[in-house]
């Protein structure tokens, strides 16, 4: 079975296609050699490998939904996200945050510090502490390497490491090639979700990362309440298919929180920075009618 998997992996490695953006060549002989050793001892996925793997997977999500063309919103989410990440155990990762152009409600993260939130979810947040909660949850997945664990399970540890080392790095963490094996495993991971216990752990960690950063730890409870009242179909379908039921998450999170974080002082729920993006100024009024107002109208206007 293991050799069959290695053979499949070799086929996948041979199918590597150069990036249309920046074609780069890799040493296939070296790849094959590494793949042959895939049945060997487990090894740790290094940070560089993690970032390269994550770049490919983030690129896959962006292939399904590109970034929203709103520089102010993207900047804002990066400022909030990076501040939160500084209060995690991996502050030095090259964290990148983005709002993706989908009206569906979801958020994704990928190894190495990639976090994407859909515009549909952003629009349903009540305040900045809820945004901090969502980003804190996703940051926690990256910090605990939940995606790496899922990929190791589906691909095999050694092979995943080989893919990570082989993918050529660049500004986005990936500029050259990735194996179709990695992309397909990532695709399945995004469609099936992570381990449910990992989701519960990310909930518990996310509220603490938010609170460490100065936000109310109850933002996530608000988000989960929104989800618990939503239908499991339509814009929420993939999110619900890949996460435990929101009511279950609230119950477990509430049990873990108790009143432990209630004594925090100075934490904020909302800030003008969020309000400005959530409630943009109304469109300008239509230009005045070219016709002159009647005397009666003028009179009313001055009364």
């Amino acid at each position, binding site marked *: 079975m293991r050799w069959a998997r290695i053979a499949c992996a070799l086929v996948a490695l041979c199918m590597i296609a150069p*990036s249309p*953006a920046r074609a780069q060549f890799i040493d296939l002989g070296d790849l094959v050699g590494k793949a042959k050793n895939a049945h060997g001892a487990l090894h740790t996925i290094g940070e560089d490998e993690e970032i390269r793997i994550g770049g*490919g997977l*983030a*690129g*896959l*999500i962006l292939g399904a*939904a*590109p*970034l*929203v*063309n*709103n520089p102010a919103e993207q900047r804002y989410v*990066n400022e909030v996200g*990076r*501040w939160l990440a*500084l209060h995690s155990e991996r502050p030095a990762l090259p964290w*990148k945050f983005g709002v993706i*152009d*989908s*009206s*569906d409600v*979801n958020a994704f993260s990928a190894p190495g510090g990639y976090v994407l939130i*859909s515009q549909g979810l952003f*629009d349903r947040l009540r305040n900045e502490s809820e945004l901090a909660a969502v980003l804190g949850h996703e940051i926690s997945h990256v910090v605990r390497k939940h995606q790496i664990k899922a990929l190791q399970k589906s691909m095999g540890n050694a092979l995943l490491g080989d893919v990570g080392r082989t993918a050529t790095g660049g*500004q*986005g*963490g990936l500029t050259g090639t*990735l194996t179709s094996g990695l*992309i397909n495993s990532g*695709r399945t991971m995004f469609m099936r979700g992570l381990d449910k216990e990992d989701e519960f752990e990310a909930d*518990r960690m996310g*509220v*603490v990362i938010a*609170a*460490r*950063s*100065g936000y*109310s730890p109850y933002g996530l409870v*608000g988000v989960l*309440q*929104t989800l*618990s*009242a*939503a239908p499991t*179909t*339509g814009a*929420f*379908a*993939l999110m619900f298919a890949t996460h435990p039921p929101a009511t279950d998450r609230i119950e*477990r999170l509430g049990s*873990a929180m108790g*009143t432990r*974080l*209630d004594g925090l002082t100075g*934490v904020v*729920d909302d800030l003008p*920075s969020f309000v400005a993006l959530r*409630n943009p100024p109304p469109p300008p009024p239509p*230009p005045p009618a070219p016709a002159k107002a009647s005397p009666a109208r003028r009179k009313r206007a001055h009364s």
Partner: protein
Amino acid sequence: MRRALTLIVLACVTVPSTAADATERGVVIRNGDIKVQPFLDAAPAGNVAANDAVTIVDRKGGWVQVQAAGKTGWIRTLNIRLAATDGAVAHQTSVASAASMLRTGSSGKTVTTGVKGLGEEDLRNASVNLAELDKLGTLAVDPGEATADAQKKGLKESQIDYLAKGGKK
């Protein structure tokens, strides 16, 4: 002609925001007091019973202000379950909804339907978008910029341990 065009645009903007300005409604999970202020040791403002329907007026930290049977008071957020919605957003304003509807993607194409799904099928058919990945890289801010922004907002840092399952530390 211009007026007609304006009316058409306004119609496109306002019609789909079905739940705009709707109020959030919830159900009490367990019997207890509602408080005059959002604190555990605040004076009681009345009692609520499990399954009582409430209207949510405000939120503050771990508390929501509710109206129930003529009484108004604060109750812990965790003691409230939101009533099911039809999927529309109770707290979303019509303006925000309209802005979302008209937002354009990075492709520059104008969104007219407001529906851009991201389901299993979209993921199954997706391929890696390196141009967008590079763009994502250009959006990142460094720790200094993020810290300056947080200081400007007055965010206060705390040292807090992670929570254990079930509340055991």
